[in-house]
């Protein structure tokens, strides 16, 4: 049998997050997908069937009250324990804020190299694990590998397509030892309510508003256009910093990187840092009243005009077209 590949399971409220299936799919290309669930008692059992369906043959259950009482260190402890038992070919984690921080601690603990925010992974002919990364906002694609220790790789959400198999997974307990002295304690969780729109990273269509949208109320125009496509809403940093839209929707260098089929930018100038988060989108449509706005350099279709006229008209036209 092939060598195990550890996958940190991303879950909340008794359900898997979509990245978990993507990680298991990626793991199957490298070896034998082995899921690691960190949670309160019973979580692994609850998730096992679905994990199996996405290719996990084994599920390590690192469970206990500490799992959710402390930040980051429970997952690090669980992965380190699972790694000690399995000598994995690689450890794959989500390239979320949590995932990357777990990766950081684990990499120092195992003295192993880390590749962050991979968009693809494969096994090279010589049996080494190669990750593809998209750097400087998509300006370059690089292929890299880990040359010290066990490769620790965080994978960008929606970068690879999840596959289903007919497998089932066996649950194996693993001890969860958390040292409170080196851990920050969780006082309260305020989860973001899941809205009706798709996740920014998963959406086929993203409609973003910039400072040109002018106010929080006006963002209803951006939302309306997103909704006729069943898309997600994004925002520029200027729009976020002006209080028009919440910060988790920021697209760009210091926000989310998106690569949808269609990206529509309304009242966004197209600063290089905004482009860094969206320039690998398949089709880009931009509406801006300034003909010299840099966003037009990137747009497949650019409209010089007033977004307050064009966005509602486009929304209407798309709605009619969709029937």
């Amino acid at each position, binding site marked *: 049998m092939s060598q195990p590949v550890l996958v940190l399971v991303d879950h909340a409220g008794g359900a898997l997050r979509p990245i978990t299936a993507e990680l298991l799919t990626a793991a199957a290309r490298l070896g034998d997908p082995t899921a690691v669930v960190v949670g309160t008692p019973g979580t692994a059992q609850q998730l096992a069937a679905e994990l199996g369906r996405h290719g996990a043959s084994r599920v390590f259950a690192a469970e206990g009250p500490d799992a959710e009482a402390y930040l*980051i260190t429970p997952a690090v402890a669980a992965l380190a324990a699972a790694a000690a038992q399995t000598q994995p070919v690689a450890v794959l984690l989500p390239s979320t804020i949590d995932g990357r*921080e777990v990766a950081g601690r684990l990499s120092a603990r195992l003295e192993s190299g880390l590749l*962050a925010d991979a968009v693809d992974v494969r096994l090279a002919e010589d049996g080494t694990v190669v990750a593809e990364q998209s750097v400087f906002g998509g300006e370059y694609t690089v292929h890299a590998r880990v040359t010290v220790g066990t490769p620790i790789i965080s994978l960008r959400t929606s970068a690879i397509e999840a596959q289903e198999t007919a497998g089932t997974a066996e649950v194996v307990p693993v001890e969860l030892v958390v040292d409170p002295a*080196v*851990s920050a304690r969780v006082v309260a969780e305020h989860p973001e309510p899941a809205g009706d729109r798709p996740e920014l990273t998963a959406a086929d269509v993203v409609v973003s508003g910039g400072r040109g949208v002018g106010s929080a109320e006006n963002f209803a125009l951006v939302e309306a256009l997103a909704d006729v496509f069943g898309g997600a809403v994004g925002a520029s940093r200027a729009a976020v910093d002006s209080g028009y839209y919440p910060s*988790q929707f920021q697209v760009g260098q210091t926000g989310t990187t998106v690569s949808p089929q*269609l990206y529509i930018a309304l009242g966004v100038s197209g600063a*290089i840092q905004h482009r860094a988060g969206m320039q690998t989108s398949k089709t880009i449509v931009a509406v801006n009243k300034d003909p010299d706005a840099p966003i037009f350099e990137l747009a*497949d*279709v650019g409209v010089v005009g007033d977004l307050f006229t064009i966005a509602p008209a486009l929304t209407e036209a798309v709605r009619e077209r969709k029937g």
Partner: protein
Amino acid sequence: MSDPLHVVVLVKQVPDTYSERRLREEDWTLDRDATDPVIDEIDTRGVEAGLQLVEEHGGEVTVLTMGPERATEALRKALAMGAARAVHVQDDRLAGACALQTSVALAAALRTLAPDLVITGNESTDGRTGSLPSMLAERLGVPQITSAKALRLDAATRSLSAERVHDSGVTEVTATLPAVVSVNEKTNEPRYPNFKGIMSAKKKPVSVLGLDDLEVDPARFGTGATSTTVLAGAPRPARAAGETLTDDGQGNSVATVVEHLVAGRLL
């Protein structure tokens, strides 16, 4: 807390995000000559957070960087904002260091400084691994409060709390000093150095440490010992030129946009 607070803020010099950043085609490492180096914006927020804490509780901010000689400019900027002193880890054997090597060197430098609190950015704008704060916390054996805003310190109990902003919401967290904190972009608006700050920064002490000054195993450094290696790279293919329409003010462009979407099977 009877002793004054000692905060060390990590600052990184990065290629200016306003310019076109490049990799060197020989080895796919950062082309430092292609762009102007600047202090990473997120680290000015780290400096601001550190200064606010010592202004409230007393104490001093030391800034620490690892980088080539030019990185001293980033330190000067932080000193001009109000940091008291600077430490520059500089050694030719650190050129092209991976995150793991960087964490070994910076953790060793931090041990010599014995801070109550280490503040970093949540993610640099060049490497963007977002992993260094937790690597440092692991190496120093302290808790981490990452991606934080709204930092509050209770000096009497040495307890630090913050709101941690992550992908699926906000978590209120707390830890006891010493600790590593990483700040997120929305944590504060950094102050601009004033003239007096800029002048006094020139006189503030900057100590330079090489690997031989640190308690590290020299065998871990050098390009032959990096934990990650780039095998190949390619620049982004140019986008095909698009079409620009000018609307008549009544929305006459919309029909053409729809045609494009239909042609591209997006509708």
